């Protein structure tokens, strides 16, 4: 039986952890952060959920196909890996578009973010596939 403290802390950490990981994901490239560590953080938040509440409890509430998420992530990453070639630039170059948005003003769109999002999804999917597999059929709660 898992203590009440663990349950309460987990639900809080889940939201904070995911929000922080998304901020890391978007901050990456120019400051510390990036797709990989953001993915690892999100995955660890979910892992905590699995450990504390057990696989059955979690999967009766939501069911995500982590394998498909990691495949999708890889596909996105490879798309942004190859994209610069279409513009005559070397592999992995970051394409930068500056656009004007109402209210927000000048916004820079950078293709490296797309690549990082792909890595993020691939990492989340891969880690959670492993966690689910090693959790087996038994409940950990």
């Amino acid at each position, binding site marked *: 039986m898992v203590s009440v403290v663990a349950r309460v802390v987990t639900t809080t950490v889940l939201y904070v952890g995911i929000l922080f990981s998304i901020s890391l994901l978007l901050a990456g490239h120019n400051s510390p952060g990036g797709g990989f560590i953001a993915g690892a953080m999100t995955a660890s938040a979910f892992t905590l959920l699995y450990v504390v509440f057990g696989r059955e409890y979690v999967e009766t509430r939501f069911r995500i196909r982590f394998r498909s998420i990691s*495949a999708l992530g*890889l*596909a996105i990453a*490879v798309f942004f*890996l*190859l994209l610069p*070639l279409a513009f005559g*630039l*070397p*592999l*992995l*170059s*970051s394409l930068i578009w500056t656009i004007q948005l109402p209210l927000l003003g000048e916004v820079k769109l950078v293709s490296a973010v797309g690549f990082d999002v792909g890595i993020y999804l691939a990492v989340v999917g891969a880690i959670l596939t492993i966690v689910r597999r090693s959790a087996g059929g038994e409940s950990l709660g």
Partner: protein
Amino acid sequence: MSLLVALLVALPIATAVLTLVLWRWPVLQRGVAVVSSTALTLGSIALVLQVHATGIQIHILSGWPAPFGIVLVADLLSASLVAVSASVFLAALVYSLGYMPSGTTRFSYLPLFFFLHMGVNGAFLTGDLFNLFVFFEVMLLSIYGLVITSERDSLISRKEKLEATFKYLVLNLIGSALMLLAIAILYGTTGTLNMAHLSIRIDALRALGATHLDLAAFLFIVVFGLKAAAVPFHFWLPDVHPSAPTPISAVLSGILINVGAYGLIRLTTLLFPGVQVVSEVILLVAIATLLLGAVLALGQLDIKRLLAYSSISQMGFLLLGVGLATVQGLAAAVFFLINHALIKSMLFLAAGGIMHVTRERSLDRMGGLARGAPLLALTFLIGVLALAGLPPVNGFISKLLVFQALIESGRLVYLLLALVGAFLGILYAFRAWLRIFWGRGSGGSETSVGGRQLAPIAALAGLCLVFGLLAEPLVGLTTAIAGQIMDPNVYIDAVCPLTCRS
């Protein structure tokens, strides 16, 4: 800036992801795999021609020029090795499609196969030492998954596969740690990871008496020696290569150990050129590898283990050429590298066919297969002749070149020992052929081996014959390769002529 170089790394990873996404449509998935593998083979041959015609090709990743960013560099050596690897991968892929159960190819096998392809191409093409480490890890992670894949003729138990993979995993973790340490020593002292830049700075620092850099050189000998299965780091190979599914055995023995040899060639020609002690150590390791591998191969009864031990022995011949550090020696080593890839992958695929027909792994329980399986007998004979180093196949030329290089450098003791090894090679190679194909036995029929399995074997055997009978163009190419890599300045000038020299 060459697009082709970039595509040779990008296309395998794109294919890996496509095959992962297309798992619901197996026919489409297999089609994509074959088309992409064919394109990679043709593309890499085009790259060899391009490099031969116009010089070293580079691709500056993400637009950061060397030595600040990572560059992909295709000189003649890299391009030729990529071309040979791509051909072997294509043969192994076609074989897999006729051999591996479709359940396994759909989910993990094909994506991992192309991730491995990307790792191999990347390792050959990268011009950055740390990037080389990353590609090594990509290869290793794919191999772990591929070795334990279950195959159709389950003559090897899952327990054996897991044991072999575990051994490989532990050893390579140690190897990776040592490689990281070696890279750290070099980076800490020189402040760069670009191989051309490293070459200049190591040279300058050694001239000033920075002998601790030699420690890094020896660590690299251990790391690459582990990959190339050089004695005393050979013991993992006879467990891992035979445990893998047949097409993966072919790729492992044909290409993966070449990556280690490639590392040693770069070490002795680019990073530490002309360092006598490094070459001498490699020569000693080479002769031990050559003899021990041959002696151990003599006693094997398991067909795939015998081939695995012969790979160790053949690696010894190759490393002799590397250790000589002369143009002839390196030309012989590169010729050996290219031809051993073809010979050994063909032999492993043929061994898979033999195991499929006889349902046996042990030579003791085989025999008389020449009647039931004439095509397998012929192709296996070509492979056996090549292993033994007899004319008219490519293995003869490669051993002849090694012996010639030894004579020209005046290394007569090494020559005598190598001749002993070559003699043992004749014994173990023909022992296998006689036991399998001659004598009495249940035989079996070749018709149960499909065309998709026989075609790649026949194609590779054909190449072995062609390179044996018409060796002159290939010898010309390998001599050009040796000439190009013997002078590090050619590489340096192509990668970063201005920024690195300032």
